C-alpha cells in the first residue's frame, strides 16, 4: 500500500507534506483506530505518539509510524482532551498512552490507564503541576 492509498483509506482531503525527511498528514478528525488498524495491516511499526498542548484546552497528537524505513506522521487533535486508545490494536501504544496520560492528563478511552512514571496516588498531568521552588526548607507548591 502506497502513501496515496493510505491517505485515501483514511478519507483525508489534505496532501502528504514532506518535512524534516519525513511525511506528515494532518486531519483534525482523524479516526485513530482506523489509522492504527491500517498501519498494522501494512506492517508499519508504531514509533511513538507526541502530545503537545495547544492554545486552547485540547492537545495536538502526532502518531509517528515507521513504514519500511519511512517515517509517517499523522497529526490530529483531541476532543475534550480525549482520544480512543489504540493499545488493543497495537500493543506498542500501551506504555506510550500511559506516559502521555501521566504527563499531560490526556485520556484514552477503551482501556485502563495505570500510572507509568508517577506514583499511584498522584493525579495525572505532571507537566501541568505548579512547581515553585521554595528552597531547601520548602518543596513542591
Amino acid at each position, binding site marked *: 500500500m502506497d502513501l496515496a492509498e493510505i491517505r485515501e483509506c483514511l478519507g483525508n482531503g489534505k496532501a502528504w507534506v514532506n518535512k524534516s525527511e*519525513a511525511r506528515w498528514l494532518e486531519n483534525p478528525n482523524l479516526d485513530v483506530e482506523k489509522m492504527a488498524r491500517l498501519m498494522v495491516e501494512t506492517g508499519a*511499526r508504531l*514509533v*511513538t505518539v507526541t502530545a503537545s498542548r495547544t492554545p486552547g484546552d485540547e492537545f495536538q497528537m502526532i502518531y509517528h509510524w515507521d513504514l519500511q*524505513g519511512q517515517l509517517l506522521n499523522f497529526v490530529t487533535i483531541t476532543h475534550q482532551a480525549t482520544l480512543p486508545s489504540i493499545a488493543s490494536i497495537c500493543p506498542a501504544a500501551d506504555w506510550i498512552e500511559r506516559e502521555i496520560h501521566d504527563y499531560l492528563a490526556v485520556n484514552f478511552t477503551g482501556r485502563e490507564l495505570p500510572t507509568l*512514571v508517577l506514583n499511584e496516588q498522584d493525579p495525572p498531568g505532571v507537566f501541568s503541576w505548579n512547581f515553585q521552588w521554595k528552597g531547601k526548607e520548602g518543596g513542591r507548591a
Partner: protein
Amino acid sequence: MSYTIPIGPYHPSLEEPCKLQVTCEGEIVQDVTLSVKYNFRGVEWLAERRNYHQAITLVERVCGICSNVHTLTFCNAVEHLAGLPVPERAQYIRTIVVELERLTSHALWAGIAAEVMGFQTLFMTCFALREQLMDLLETLSGNRVHYGMNCIGGVTRDLTDPEAVRTTSRRVRQTVADQLIPLFANDKTVHARCAGIGKLSKEQALAWGAVGPTARASGLTEDIRRTSPYAAYARLAFEVPVETSGDVFARVVVRLREMVESCRIVEQALDQMPPGPIHGPGFVEVPPGEAVARSEAPRGELFYYVASDGTDIPSRVKIRTPSFVNQPTVRLMMLQENLADVPLINASIDPCYSCTSR
C-alpha cells in the same frame, strides 16, 4: 499454587532501579509486572524551559551511557528546523564518536551479561576493552561519560589525532573477533545460559515496537543508519547483523557482530574524513515549525521531536528512547521461563531505566 516475588527496585546486578513483580508456579514464570518510575526527572518539561544550547547539556544527561547520541539527535532535529547545513568534517567526527560510544555501550553490556551468567573472566575481558575505549573518548573529548561533542551546526572539538583512534579501533576489532566472539559463541556455559531462553518472535517484536539489537535478534532488519542515514553513514559500507532465533543468545551475537562493524565504520570514516570547518555560525535563529530526527543509538532507534515558536526556547521536546519500547517486551520473553533466568533475560535487552523514565 502460585506466588509472587518482588525483584527490585534495587537490583544487585543491574544497579539501576526497576521493579519486577514475578508471579510463578513452581519455578516457572506465569506473569510479570514492570515498574519503571524510579528515574523520572521530567527531562522533556525541563528542556522546554531552557534555550536550545542549554537543552543540549540537559539532554546529554538523559543517559550516562548513550549521552552523545542524545545530543546528536537533538541537534539533528534543530538543524532540520533551522535548515542548517553541517560541515562534512563534522559529520564524520559525529559518526566516529557515536560509533565509539556504541562500542563502549556494547562492551559494558557484554561485561554485565557475563557477570550475570557468572563468568567473571569474560566480565574482566569486556571491561578491560571498555576501559581502552573510555580512555580514547577522554582523549578526544576531555570526558569519559558526557563528551560535550555536539553543538547545533557541527561539533565542538576537532579530531586532531586520528592515528590514536585508528590504533584503538584496530585493537578493539581484533579483541572482539579473536577473543569475545569465540568465547561467547563456543563456551558451554554461555550456551547453556543463553540458547533457547527468553524468546521474542519477529511478530511480537514488531507489534510491541522493539528496536535495535533486541529487534534484529528476532529477525527484524531495520537499522536507522541504513534506512534513514544521518551524519556520514550514507557514505560508509557496513553490514547490519540480523539473527532469527530471538533468544538471549541471538541478542549476544547481534551485539558482538555490531562491535566489529562499528570498528569498520570508524576506520572508514577516518580514511574518508576531509579537512575543513567543524561547525557553522555559533548562534542560530530557529524559525517557528516542527521537526523530527532519528538515530541508531546502541540500544536501538532514538527519536526526537522538537517544535519551535520562534523564540530561543523550544516549545516542545519529545524524546522516545529505545529502552522505552524494548522494556515492555521482557514480559513476553520471561513468560514460561525459569525464574533463575529472569535476571539474564532482563539484562539481555540492555535495559536503561534512566532512558526509560527520563
